[in-house]
């Protein structure tokens, strides 16, 4: 561990403080340090060093005591929420938070699955890496149909920043020229399988408004010099990314933004530093720094900086703001609007259609693709809305051959059964719905009146549930997916509705939204709080609507844009 990089106590006043080290914290630190600002990154969890701390990477199943499954008593005791995540297993559990140490409450009659990764790198180590630009329609949606407030930015404001971050991150995908899904700067796409290619061709004729494309993901397929300079190499198609990737083939804080920030010599990191609240200087109406409680010793300390970027995750950021109370801001810092905590959103993934595909007996694939098929939202503007619900959804999925695990309980015995499992089984296709969630004031978080965590910080109380709009969207999407599969000639079509609570898409956004009106929003169009000039929020909390696509690429672009604005303002003396 680089002892000069990691600090504990210090009397230094930094140019900038970044709270959080995940997707947005990493980007904020990179952009601030590369612009010459001495920056402190604060992380509540432990340090995770690239390569060295990927303790299960490459470990085959026979080397796990439970063959990758997790001891039930441990799951029930420490991971009763985290175990709901598809990526949670014995090889990844150390990157998920211990639920027993991070309690939160939910309003009676509601549930919210809050998936957390409290260590250096945060959820950038665990994410699913699917990367999509939001479109002009996404930024106009609230204004167009009246749900939520109008975004203060348009696609054109963010487009150059998407391009900027994409060149650094490395996005695999195909240029399609679709109005509802702007192309990124791409590295080569992953290949489709033969049934997928045929499905794409059939849908192009039969369902021309539902183009089937390969998904876009933050994996290097043709690394560029600025990526190889950081030690990143081409994706090897292991698709075991959540264990950590020593190849640096997928984008994470550890593989990309952190080494870039460290290279400037301007970065310091304080790990095991739980931010209790922001220190407010009422005389100058500035945030002066942060109050921190040591994760392990519970001792208090303070850090000081001239600009503060909150990148602590959507709900982590809002919890800190709500807990930063003063005479001027009795209900949370920069909350003169009273909107802080409101309009929480996620994506709804509760509908899945699957079917059998006949033929293709001698078609197979090698490697484990970290991408899928993707069918972009086709209800992307009000004139294209379904009559029964507002906004829209995408499908993600793909075709695969059944394997020893999916056929494991099928009938048969002996050498005949063994020979059956020796070969791949029949082809199937699965398509999962990824639906937008309407912004709704009633979906909100507050601080619990009495319950606190072990650091003495009031627990978050979450009141969030799906509306009929999302439920009806899921039901109708099953019919659409089934119809597409039927037209493609697939058989044994199965429609499945799940009842997962919000949270499990791990796309929570909102609760400190942007807006043009300080009376109805927390942040302006540069993610700067309306109330305090040197306080910025650039994670998902800033979103006005969820859009349909996976949000991380937008987190990155919006952060880079905000830092550019903040540093220019700082250097011109406007923030001090």
């Amino acid at each position, binding site marked *: 561990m680089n002892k000069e990089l990691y600090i504990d106590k210090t009397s230094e006043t930094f140019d900038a403080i970044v709270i959080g080290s995940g997707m947005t914290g990493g980007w904020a630190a990179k952009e601030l340090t590369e612009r010459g600002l001495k920056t402190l990154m604060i992380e509540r969890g432990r340090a995770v060093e690239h390569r060295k701390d990927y303790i299960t990477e*490459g470990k*085959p*199943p*026979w080397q796990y005591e*439970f*063959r*990758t*499954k*997790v*001891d*039930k*008593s441990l799951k*029930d005791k420490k991971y009763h929420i985290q175990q709901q995540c*598809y*990526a949670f*297993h014995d090889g990844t559990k150390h990157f998920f938070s211990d639920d027993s140490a991070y309690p939160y409450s939910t309003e009676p009659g509601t549930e919210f699955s809050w998936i957390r990764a409290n260590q250096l790198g945060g959820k950038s180590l665990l994410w699913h890496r699917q990367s999509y630009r939001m479109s002009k329609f996404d930024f106009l949606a609230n204004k167009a149909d009246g749900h939520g407030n109008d975004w203060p930015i348009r696609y054109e404001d963010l487009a150059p920043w998407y391009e900027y971050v994409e060149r650094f991150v490395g996005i695999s995908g195909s240029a399609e020229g679709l109005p509802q899904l702007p192309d990124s700067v791409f590295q080569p796409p*992953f*290949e*489709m*399988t*033969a049934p*997928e*290619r045929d499905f794409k061709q059939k849908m192009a004729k039969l369902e021309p408004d539902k183009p089937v494309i390969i998904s876009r993901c933050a994996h290097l397929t043709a690394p560029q010099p600025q990526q190889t300079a950081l030690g990143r190499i*081409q*994706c*090897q*198609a*292991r*698709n*075991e990314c959540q264990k950590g990737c020593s190849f640096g083939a997928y984008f994470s804080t550890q593989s990309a933004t952190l080494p870039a920030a460290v290279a400037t010599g301007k970065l310091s990191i304080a790990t095991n530093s739980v931010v209790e609240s922001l220190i407010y200087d009422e005389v100058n109406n500035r945030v002066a720094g942060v109050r921190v409680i040591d994760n392990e010793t519970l001792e208090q300390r303070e850090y000081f900086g001239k600009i503060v970027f909150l990148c602590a995750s959507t709900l982590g950021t809002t919890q800190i703001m709500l807990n930063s109370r003063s005479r001027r801001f009795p209900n949370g810092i920069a909350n003169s609007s009273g909107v802080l905590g409101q309009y929480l959103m996620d994506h709804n993934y509760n509908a899945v259609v699957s079917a059998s595909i006949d033929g293709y*007996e*001698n*078609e*197979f*694939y*090698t*490697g*484990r*693709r970290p991408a899928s098929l993707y069918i972009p939202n086709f209800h992307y503007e009000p004139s294209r809305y379904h009559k029964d619900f507002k906004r829209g959804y995408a499908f993600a999925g793909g075709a695969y*051959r059944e*394997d*020893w*695990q999916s056929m*494991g*309980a099928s*009938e048969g*015995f*002996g*050498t005949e*059964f*063994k020979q059956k*499992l*020796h*070969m*791949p089984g029949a082809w199937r296709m699965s398509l999962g719905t990824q639906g937008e969630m309407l912004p709704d004031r009633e979906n909100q978080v507050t601080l619990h009146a009495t319950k606190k965590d072990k650091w003495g910080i009031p627990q978050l109380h979450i009141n969030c549930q799906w509306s009929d709009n999302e439920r009806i969207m899921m039901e109708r999407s099953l019919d659409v997916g089934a119809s597409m599969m039927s037209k493609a000639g697939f058989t044994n079509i199965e429609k499945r509705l799940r009842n997962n609570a919000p949270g499990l898409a791990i796309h929570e956004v909102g609760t400190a939204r942007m807006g043009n009106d300080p009376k109805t929003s927390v942040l302006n169009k540069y993610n700067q709080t309306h109330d305090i000039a040197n306080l910025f929020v650039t994670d998902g909390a800033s979103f006005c609507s969820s859009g349909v696509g996976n949000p991380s690429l937008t987190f990155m672009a919006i952060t880079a844009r905000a830092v550019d604005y903040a540093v220019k303002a700082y250097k011109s003396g406007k923030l001090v």
Partner: protein
Amino acid sequence: MTLSRRQLIKQFGVSAAAGTIFSPKAFAIAGQFRETDTAESLTMAPALVETLAHIADHVIPRTDTPGARDVLCHHFVVHQLQHVYDKADYNKVEDLLTFLLEVGKDTSSFPQISYDTQRKILVDLEQAASPFSDIHRDTFRLVKSLIVFGYYTSEPGATKELKYLAVPGGFKGSVPLDSVGSAFSSKAYY
């Protein structure tokens, strides 16, 4: 008073009906049985484990590669049920194995009857044919899926019977199956 099969198993750690060798360790541990949500504190009777071993041999026998029994899938199944599954699942499997032992009791216990007769019993079980119930069949599916999981996640099953690609080196979307030769054991998520 007549003891139920379950009581018998719990109290003596073996099936008296099966006439198998008594295990002091099993007795001691079963005697300390506590009601918990997991089966971690339970020890399966040796006769039942032996029955499982025979089942494993029927599901995936030794060919030119090791079989499920060779890689100790019977112990894996018990271990997995004890530590990963609910106690209710463990109990269902224990009930099924106990029932299987009794199916053969007119002649001898399941492990002692002929291979062909064992196979006939297991085929009946998989079809829920008399004397087996739908619950027996469903429980057997769990047992079978665990044997399969244990086998193909064992090193011999994963690397000798199928292909294990630790580092595939890239993804190819269309290759002839006959150029690969078999399925892959390696997965992104198990």
